[in-house]
């Protein structure tokens, strides 16, 4: 009998195809929107987290200048080699330290040129930032000390200047100096916020200071904390050390900035997660509206089919059977809408993920939840019209025009 009633409901739905489709549309859009938004949101969270991770594991970045509103740094005493050595020597839990002074420069090779970020650093940079040599070599001790013009280039620079030819040994012009390429880096791809991590050129710090900036400042100290340590503790120790070295009076603000990548990653992740939840909640409201749409149509349908209900009751249907028929119609409509919504939502998020170059994530519990909720919508909003149908008096129902 149950199967019979389901078949009857399906037949009724097919009989009014246009109306059924319109009724389902609310649920389809609701479920589809919840799934697409949550899926894209999860993908974005995953991508951002992965990208921040790509910057380097347990990375801390120390720069001069206080952190002020808007993120800009105010002018302050700069960092130098001694600060860096002090961090390496005195802070426990520091795995490696590398200088990272950089400046945007035009690099010219033959008739091609590229604008890239020139970073003066040492061999620790590879370890701290997680770069590997693709071809060639790192700097030698002698090169690091003497400040000869040699450099290692990132994949983007290599592509722009050399296309397919071998860059090793080539001389490129950087500002006023000529620099020999001794190595190329393995591509790391894009980091968070769309930053190209392969668009860079490395040279020994001494070379950079002497030939490019002309001073002994270090604009950025990169610190990698030991694996498994809480980076915030390491960051705090660095702060204390630098305050002492820079003679900051008690109670004054820092005139430098220690940025903890793990902390940034957490902040970004919690932001995107909250955003995903918000979008999901908005979509859930549309699912609710879809449910009310079903109730609306079912109520109209009961009125419209009053005679039919009268006939069914007269020829021997129990009130309960009529109620079950209408309830099942609502449930079939809403679950069918739910299934279509799940499929469309996943298809939509698949293409959205591709368009936004995000990973495609299927959130299984959200798919289950959205589907279960759509069925529940059918029960909840189908009940009232179904009860109304079952309570009709057959005599009056038959007289209804």
């Amino acid at each position: 009998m149950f199967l019979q009633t389901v078949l009857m409901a399906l037949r009724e739905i097919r009989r009014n195809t246009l109306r059924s489709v319109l009724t389902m549309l609310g649920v389809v859009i609701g479920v589809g929107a919840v799934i697409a938004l949550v899926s894209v949101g999860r993908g974005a969270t995953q991508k951002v987290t992965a990208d921040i991770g790509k910057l380097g594991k347990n990375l801390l970045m120390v720069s001069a200048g206080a952190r002020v509103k808007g993120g800009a740094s105010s002018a302050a005493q700069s960092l130098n080699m001694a600060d860096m050595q002090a961090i390496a020597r005195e802070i426990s839990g520091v795995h490696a330290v590398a200088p990272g002074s950089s400046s945007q420069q035009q690099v010219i090779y033959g008739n091609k040129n590229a604008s890239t970020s020139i970073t003066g650093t040492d061999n620790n940079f590879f370890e701290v930032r997680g770069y590997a040599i693709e071809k060639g070599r790192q700097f030698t001790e002698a090169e690091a000390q003497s400040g000869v013009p040699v450099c290692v280039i990132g994949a983007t620079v290599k592509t722009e200047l050399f296309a397919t030819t071998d860059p090793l040994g080539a001389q490129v012009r950087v500002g006023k100096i000529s620099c020999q390429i001794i190595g190329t880096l393995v591509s790391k791809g894009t980091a968070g916020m769309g930053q190209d991590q392969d668009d860079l050129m490395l040279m020994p710090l001494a070379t950079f200071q002497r030939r490019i900036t002309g001073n002994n400042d270090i604009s950025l100290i990169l610190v990698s904390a030991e694996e498994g340590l809480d980076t915030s503790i390491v960051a705090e120790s660095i702060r204390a050390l630098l305050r002492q070295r820079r003679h900051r009076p008690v109670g004054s603000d820092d005139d430098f900035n220690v940025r903890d990548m793990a902390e940034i990653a957490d902040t970004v992740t919690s932001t995107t997660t909250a955003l995903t939840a918000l979008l999901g909640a908005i979509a859930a409201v549309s699912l609710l509206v879809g449910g009310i749409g079903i109730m609306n149509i079912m109520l109209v349908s009961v009125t419209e089919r009053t005679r039919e209900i009268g006939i069914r009751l007269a020829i021997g249907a129990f009130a309960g059977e009529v109620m079950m028929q209408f309830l099942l119609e609502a449930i079939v409509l809403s679950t069918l809408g739910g299934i279509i919504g799940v499929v469309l939502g996943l298809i939509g998020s698949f293409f959205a993920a591709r368009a936004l170059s995000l990973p495609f994530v299927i959130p299984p519990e959200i798919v289950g939840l959205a589907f279960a909720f759509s069925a529940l919508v059918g029960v909840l909003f189908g009940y009232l019209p179904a009860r109304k149908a079952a309570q009709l008096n057959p005599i009056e129902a038959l007289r209804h025009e």
Partner: protein
Amino acid sequence: MSAPSVQTANGEAIIELRGVKKVYGEGESEVRALAGIDFDIARGDFVAIMGTSGSGKSTCMNILGCLDVPTAGSYRLAGVTTTDLHGDGLTLLRRHYIGFVFQGFNLLSRTSALENVELPLVYRRVAARERRTAALRSLELVGLSDRADHTPQELSGGQQQRVAIARALVTDPELLLADEPTGNLDSARTQEIMNLLVDLNRKRGITIVMVTHEPDVAAYANRVVVFRDGLIVEDSRPGRAH
């Protein structure tokens, strides 16, 4: 005429009404639709109920069809005292004993004749294949085997009423209740439907109770009962005119 012999084929009454009253509303606005009637119908009889509108004939039909219950008095259908029953109990009586034919045909629209005829069997939980066989047999009985796949919209009024009769017959009911079965039909169709009913009554021994206000139609019945103001004022057995 063989009619009286069919009427008293086994002498047993299928319908027994005793002191049945039906009152609508209360106090000032009280309407006595049935003022207390005693009325038996023998198994195999063909009874026409006549009367003006408001005479109580429709109320009586509703009670006979277990669609309504009397305010007072008792009604026994095939030996079952219906006045003890409620809701689903009355539904079961309708499901197993009664076939309905209405003035407005009352077929499900956009549903084939076959499916319409199958409907009562669905509620009797008959398996799909048997349902189809029985429905086709029933359609054949009313001469519409070739219209099984047509929807009511594709059928004439007379054909629709024959589908409705096929639907009423498909369960092999003991009692066929027809409420103005020819009210929406022209005289040629009326004759066609009435001949069919007479045939069913004679050949299959189905008890038929029919409400009509046309003497011509009532004349097909074996027994004519006239209602006025909630009472039976005339109960006769005229010779069959047709």
